[in-house]
């Protein structure tokens, strides 16, 4: 039999969301060697499918004081150490006619009890500053909410971790654990493109797979109790307000409107789901959000929406697991020792705002187990800016492009004005790390395809550019475009009415009507060009100069 290749490391991190990447950075900063395996891509799960709201904590003051206070302190820390990922927009809590008077009355005192400042604002003044607010508003409080870019946060955490020796393996899913007594000897993973399995031998294994933590724990034979809650959000065509606007009531549906750079993000919903695969937003959820959110911000009823997305919140604590060791009600850290494992830890639950703290807690556990005494310094060490990581921020690329565009820097994406130089930077960085980037990878790391046209024009332009660079060969571009639209389409479908429906029709007219992408193989047959033996991707004589 064939012995699979083995990789050695001190710590294996499973899951490349905000927690996993923060953990990789934390460990790397403490001088610990680690490998991060991610079955898809950075922030592919809930980490990339949320508002991008840096909570002041006020949202939880009534229901969950501990979480509220965590949010407050963590929010302050991140504003210090990861300033580049944050827009300090400030936020309003707004109640409209018909909302619970009682909750409104107690709100301020609840906040002060959690040490959160909420300043009552005169409604007229508030509407002067945020004209989009409903005239049916009956109470407005100002809090220290801010917007944070989770992609930039994770990408830059991972970038620093890598610079300190950590290794990232994208599109590498865990397939099994090799246990020996109370220890996991190795974790078996499947590399990209489904090649032969690899073994990763690590002294410690951390399960930071977010919603997938249950499956991973299951594979390790240490089941944990978790439930899933699906949340859907909508992205508007233009930015509606300058501040975060929260509904002043007990957390419910569609009560946060988040200004994200040049757009606004509205949501969320919350529905129990049991399966994790094929979680996508539905028309019904979109309708629910529009109707509910329009009560705070009436313009949302007539707004053009460009897409929707859905994420799954991992909720810890099902009936049987009243877990005493949970560090907080916000998130859960399992050491699995009672389940007979001494080198596995699972960290899940929690929220974007507290990801650094979650990483710190699990890193402390891992260090204790490894006998490493170095303290956590992520609360005080600024997160370094990485050139390839800033492009997810809406509205940044236009400025960058206008500042630096030379005669050879064309825009590949017009809606979000993403220049070719940005795409090259991102692409080269991924290549430098031994990756073979896809169009979707570029989309995740930039605004390509995120604008009004949802890729109609920018996808072909970007692919043409990648062919020109010599990065794409043969029919790969077609496949990439098809995948890219597949991914984009799930997000567009629920919001296809009004102007965005016209936009989608244009997209279909171009990509089906003209390019006939749905017939890409049939047309070949039809034109008498059946599949020929694939010629080796020829080295290109043309335009040797990097274009």
């Amino acid at each position, binding site marked *: 039999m064939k012995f699979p290749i083995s990789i050695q490391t001190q710590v294996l991190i499973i899951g490349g969301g905000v927690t996993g990447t923060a953990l990789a950075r934390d460990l790397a900063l403490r001088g610990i060697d680690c490998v991060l395996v991610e079955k898809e891509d950075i922030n592919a799960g809930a980490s990339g499918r949320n508002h991008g709201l840096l909570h002041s904590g006020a949202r939880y003051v009534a229901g969950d004081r501990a979480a509220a206070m965590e949010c407050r302190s963590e929010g302050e820390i991140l504003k210090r150490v990861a300033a580049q990922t944050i827009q300090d927009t400030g936020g309003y809590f707004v109640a409209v006619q018909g909302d619970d008077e009682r909750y409104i009355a107690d709100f301020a005192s609840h906040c002060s009890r959690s040490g959160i400042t909420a300043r009552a604002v005169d409604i007229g003044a508030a509407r002067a500053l945020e004209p989009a607010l409903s005239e049916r508003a009956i109470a407005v409080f100002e809090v220290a909410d801010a917007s944070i870019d989770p992609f930039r946060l994770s990408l830059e955490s991972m970038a620093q971790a890598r610079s300190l020796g950590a290794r990232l393996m994208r599109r590498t899913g865990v397939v099994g654990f090799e246990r020996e007594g109370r220890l996991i000897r190795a974790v078996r993973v499947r590399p990209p493109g489904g090649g032969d399995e690899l073994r990763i031998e690590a002294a410690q294994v951390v399960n930071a797979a977010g919603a997938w933590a249950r499956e991973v724990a299951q594979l390790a034979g240490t089941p944990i109790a978790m439930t899933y809650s699906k949340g859907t959000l909508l992205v508007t*065509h*233009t*930015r509606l307000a300058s501040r975060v606007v929260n509904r002043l009531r007990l957390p419910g549906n569609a009560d946060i409107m988040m200004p994200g750079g*040049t757009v606004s993000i509205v949501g969320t919903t919350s529905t129990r789901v049991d399966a994790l695969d094929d979680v996508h937003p539905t028309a019904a959820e979109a309708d629910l959000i529009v109707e509910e959110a329009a009560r705070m911000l009436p313009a949302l009823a007539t707004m*053009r929406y460009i897409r929707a997305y859905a994420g799954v919140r991992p909720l810890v604590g099902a009936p049987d697991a009243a877990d005493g060791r949970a560090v907080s009600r916000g998130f859960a850290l399992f050491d699995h020792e009672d389940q007979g494992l001494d080198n596995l830890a699972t960290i899940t639950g929690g929220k974007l705002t507290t990801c650094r703290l979650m990483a710190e807690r699990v890193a402390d556990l891992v260090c204790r187990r490894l006998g490493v005494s170095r303290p956590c310094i992520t609360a005080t060490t600024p997160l370094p800016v990485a050139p390839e990581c800033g492009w997810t921020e*809406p*509205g940044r690329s*236009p*400025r960058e492009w*206008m*500042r630096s565009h030379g005669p050879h820097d064309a*825009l590949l994406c*017009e*809606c*979000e*004005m993403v220049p070719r130089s940005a795409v090259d930077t991102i692409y080269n960085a991924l290549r430098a790390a031994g990756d073979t980037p896809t169009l979707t990878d570029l989309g995740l790391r930039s605004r390509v395809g995120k*604008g*009004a*046209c949802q890729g*109609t*024009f920018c996808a072909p332009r970007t692919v043409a550019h990648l062919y020109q660079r010599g990065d794409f060969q043969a029919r790969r571009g077609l496949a990439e475009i098809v995948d890219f639209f597949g991914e984009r389409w799930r997000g567009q479908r629920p919001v296809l009415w009004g*102007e965005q429906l*016209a*936009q989608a029709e*244009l997209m279909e007219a171009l990509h089906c009507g003209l390019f006939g992408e749905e017939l890409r193989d049939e047309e070949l047959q039809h034109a008498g060009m059946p599949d020929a033996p694939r010629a080796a991707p020829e080295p290109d004589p043309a335009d040797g100069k990097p274009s």
Partner: protein
Amino acid sequence: MSPAFFQSTLYASLALCALGLLWRVSAWFRVHIGPDARDVTFSRRVAAVFGGAASALFSLRVLRVLGTFVLDALFLRRLFANAKLRWLGHLLIVAGFTLLLLMHALAAVVSAKLLPGYQPTLYPYLLLRNLFGAMVLAGVALLLFGRWRQRRGLPQVRRPMDAAFVTLLATVLVAGFLLEGHKIASPRAFYRMAEQFSGTSDPAELKPLRAFWAREFGVAFGDLGESIDSNAVEEGRARHADACASCHSKPASAFISYPLSRALAQVTGILDSGRADIWLLYLHVLACFLGLGLLPFTRFFHAVAAPVSLLANAAARNRTQSVTVRASRRALALDACVRCGICDQQCSVAPLARYLGNPGLLPSHKLIATGELASGRILQSGHENDALRAADGAFLCTDCGRCTNYCPAGLDLEDLWIAARGDFAAEGLPAPAQWVQARPALAWAESMEVALAQHGFSDPDALFAPLSADRRSFSRCVQCQTCTNVCPVVAQGMDTEHGVDLTPQKVMNLLRLGLRDLTLGSRMVWDCATCYQCQEHCPEGVRVADIMYELRALAVHRLGSVRGLREPS
């Protein structure tokens, strides 16, 4: 008044006047207006002018010049054509003053020589003097009335020096009439004359003459009883006939000063004891001399400059003239403007000036600003706003040429405005399209952010940019690039070394992204040919070109408020 004093003050004021004239006239060859005039030297300009004058003198054009002098310079034909009332007032003043000057001020050298037996106190000279004075007064009244009537909301140029000069003028006239009025009624004057001509000043002895003068000449004797017996009067008439009649006609013909004297009769005693005759004389004469000396330094120098301009036009061989000549004509224009304001009324952008509240658009104001620009005054610190507004005004001119057509002084104002625009541009105050494009769009955006942080902007979107502020204006955009494809300006990017910085479609996208400030300073917005191809072709009905106009207007205000004097251009 001692002749010595009179002489010395007269010569002093004459000297001052001469110097002033010299200084002002030399300015026509010194002052540079217009970039093209920069390198035309003083001597070349002098040479050109005298050369031109000479060539005119020794050609048939001399007739044209003479005609112009009579019709335009003397009888103000051009003014008559456009403003009858003002023409009349102007003529009254000029004629009245000239006649007073000849017949009264220069009596010793003119009247005395030309008119045998001339005596200022004889009929009809009393009458005429009053008449001429009255003409001047009437003229001034007419002009003031006309000026008040023509305002039509247009602000007018006002300068202290001019006001002072008008007051001086009034002083001369009023003092003159008062003096005359007082002398008619003054017993002191009577006694002085009696002494002089009948050798006695004894009231008893002069009783009859006094009676006669009191009755016939209105001398206001304080001590004369109510009843004057007619015998005394008759005796007085006889004595008058041989002693006084040769020099004195009845003053009743002085239709202004005689009634004045009646009015003063009550206070004559006081005035006499106060020697009013002396100080009124001083006032009258000194005011005249002061006026004479100051004349060249006031706008009334146009009395010299305007005719020169008109004659120069007549002397000119053809309408278009060499830079050398125009250089001097521009400087001359600054002096020759009579501030009649006809240009302002005719100005085709006058309504714009009213609505924008910027008189800098109006010719009369532009002329002043041009002068101050030439002297550099307007560019000194503290005047930044004047300078900016003046420049704004200068560049909104449409070169319609109406001001030139109507100018009574025959000034080529159009040429002056074009020259002035050149100077404004050279001083770093070019047309908006230039000063905006002197900085890259991003630089403007950043300086606006700073300004916005300090103080908001005073230009509500609803007023300046309703379309670009309303997301519905471009929320229909489907990114099809049609606007860019049909844009001739972007197309021209193909054969110029640097293309436009943004395309129309990128501008629309920046608006959609809420980054409007990034567009205001962009070359695309300011190089837009406004040909409306984009808007006409847009399949989604986005009003691209209308929005471009809006962005320019918004830029003029927002960038204008953060722009420094002298943008690098």
